[in-house]
């Protein structure tokens, strides 16, 4: 490694971007850039890309630990494998998997064997589980209410066979696990999204709160709408209350929708671990196939998240997958199936108890905020 020098100020502001594709792409990819014409699948973990020049590149897809955390040690071993059997390159996927590039099917198989020997499963293409994305949660995050990497690990253990293809699914399945409603694992536009929830409006830790507010003298002078925490709340649940010469920040629980925006910006918002759980949303997707791109809907508004096994969560996810496997046509993603059979039928099939949360639609904004029924047609069973 070249020794760094100490640059001057002006120089220090200059950024260096890894933009020279010539430098960063491996040779076989550079030679066939934009010239790929065909592809073939070899099992669930290897894709063959065929170029118009006749050259082939094989990609081996490997699952990474939750939150894509890797020690330099393991990554070094991966680099060795890529050098020994592959074309000396790896690719990081959006879904937190890693792909090894190889020049022949035999080499790809050898990579598969070596990686599986290290305890990393190969698979995740075709009608399988494509991967589980997880946010950082208790590893570094200040906002998270549940630990998503450990939920991911517990889920991964349960759904392992669906990743390797020992058991197949009707179509592709991807799962996002986020530690709080800020949803850093990737939002809800996915087949199954698991999102950490307070379960009850947050409590304010009075001793920390002054750190997030202007100094008392300034607070007395500026209008309420200019106070950052009041500004951040989308529903107006946070307001200032003047009691004599004292000014307090008040949280109106009836207005709170547990969106995590206040907690994201200030550490003073606390919760009771007993109330904490996760919401499970289903039927979102990004791809334009089938019914097209859409966001997932809340199927289960709250279930407890109890480490280390998270049995409640894994059981419900398995239930959803079983319903999907039983009722879907071939190649039909969860969103497409729900669209075909209807949301009400799907809720019945999973057997979720229906509560007020199945009618309340914050921010949907199409008609009223709360609805007894979406429409008369939906009301008639």
């Amino acid at each position: 490694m070249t020794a760094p020098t100490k640059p001057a100020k002006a120089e220090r502001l200059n950024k260096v971007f890894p933009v020279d594709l010539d430098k960063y792409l491996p040779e076989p990819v550079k030679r066939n850039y934009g010239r790929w014409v065909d592809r073939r699948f070899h099992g669930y973990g290897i894709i063959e890309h065929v170029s118009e020049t006749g050259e082939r590149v094989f990609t081996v897809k490997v699952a990474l630990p939750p939150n894509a955390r890797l020690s330099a040690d393991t990554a070094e071993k991966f680099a060795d494998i890529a050098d020994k059997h592959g074309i000396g390159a790896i690719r990081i996927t959006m879904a937190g998997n890693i792909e090894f590039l190889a020049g022949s099917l035999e080499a790809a198989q050898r990579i598969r064997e070596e990686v599986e020997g290290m305890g990393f499963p190969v698979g995740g293409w075709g009608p399988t589980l494509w991967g589980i994305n997880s946010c950082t949660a208790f590893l570094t995050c200040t906002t998270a209410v549940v630990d998503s990497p450990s939920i991911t690990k517990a889920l991964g253990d349960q759904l392992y066979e669906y990743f390797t293809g020992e058991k197949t699914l009707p179509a592709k399945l991807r799962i996002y696990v986020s530690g709080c409603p800020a949803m850093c694992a990737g939002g809800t536009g996915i087949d199954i999204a698991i999102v950490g929830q307070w379960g009850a409006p947050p409590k304010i830790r009075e001793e920390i709160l002054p750190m997030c507010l202007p100094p008392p003298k300034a607070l007395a002078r500026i209008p309420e709408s200019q106070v950052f925490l009041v500004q951040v709340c989308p529903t107006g649940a946070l307001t200032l209350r003047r009691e004599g010469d004292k000014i307090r920040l008040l949280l109106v629980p009836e207005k709170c929708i547990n969106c995590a925006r206040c907690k994201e910006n200030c550490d003073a918002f606390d919760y009771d671990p007993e109330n904490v759980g996760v919401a499970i949303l289903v039927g979102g997707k990004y791809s334009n196939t089938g019914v097209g791109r859409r966001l997932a809907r809340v199927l289960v508004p709250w279930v407890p998240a109890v480490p280390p096994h998270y049995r409640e969560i894994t059981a419900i996810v398995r239930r959803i997958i079983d319903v999907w496997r039983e009722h879907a046509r071939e190649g039909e993603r969860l969103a497409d199936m729900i669209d075909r059979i209807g949301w009400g039928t799907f809720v019945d099939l999973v057997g979720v108890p229906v509560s007020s949360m199945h009618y309340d639609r914050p921010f949907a904004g199409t008609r009223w905020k709360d609805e007894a029924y979406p429409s008369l047609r939906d009301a008639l069973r």
Partner: protein
Amino acid sequence: MGERDPVDVGMEILRYYEEGPWPSHVKELKKTRYPMEAYAMGMAQRKTAWAAGSAKIRYVYTGFISRRTRDGKITELHFRVWQPSGQIYTTDFLRKILDFADKYGLGLIEIAGQQGQMIISVRNEVADEAVDALRAIGTDIGATGDTIRELATCVGPALCEFALYDTLAARDYYLTHPKIYEWMSNQLFPFKFKMKFSGCPFDCTRASHRSDFGLVGIWEGAPEVDHEALNEKIGKGEVDPRELAGSCPSGAITWDEKERRLNIDGAKCKKSMECIRKAFPAIKPGRNRKIAVLVGGKVKGRFGPMMAKPLAIVNTYEEAADFVVKTVEAWMEGNTPHKDRIADFIFRTGFTKYLEMLNVRPQGKPANHPRLVAGAVLDDEERRLYGDWARKIVEQYGL
């Protein structure tokens, strides 16, 4: 029985995650110098142990996050580091990054491709030097906070058959765009800004939901059908033409049994990629390739998660730069409250007003949900448009 130390309780819980067939993050973390006590404490108390910390790096204002535990005993600092476009690493480059992680950090990396950035834990006391070391390798500290946050691409033409435009070059273009470069050095936005580049409507980068500006490759008209190759595939039993027609969500496909031809109605085609996916390469995306510019996707933000809306169809990715610059400037300089994303800004402004601001006319097919209210405000030009059309019909009927 006395109270047990929460760290011990947490460690016991964490040991569970070292077993099982799925790759274990705890096993990986234990190979590094990551402070396991903090994680264990969080698991035991079922609350994250981390709170916001602080760090200072000379003349670098974004790209690193500092944390400390609530009791202040442990601190943690990590860098977001730009990845090469397409997230393809040669082992040479990867080894340099790993050496960096070992020398300046905890020997721990987070290689999620979602952000177009890699996360590397760094030791606080060498953070300043670490920036220079990163630049010597050929990459740089990325972005955190209220600024340009991520520019991510799918694998695009580097390794994919479906790429309809050069997503990697597009990302490089925007990463080095002078305006974006200017915005990137400081945190001047109301909230974060993200851009994503997807080569085709499969949208592998999730540009339609997770980016303020998403560029998605599309084509105009029907997909291209190679009838000979398709018939060969049908003969082999790989493709069932009736199933192709049935699974098309736009209902654009008909199968002519006599002629053995698959007809696709380009006007109806919704570019769902269903037929292409099943019969590639006999059915390929059409030749007339364009880029759809989507605006206002977000996960976080005032009004909750939103899907992006199509803004315009352009021919090259450079054309979208004008939209990006104008939108960001309006968003930045208007009275936008803190922590409002571009989608929130457009939601408040109104999409029609926003289009006027960009000087973009609505394009494409008429909306699927026509107006229900008769009252309308038209400008002179629009009134003339309808008047001229009516007079033409009057002439046709000889009235």
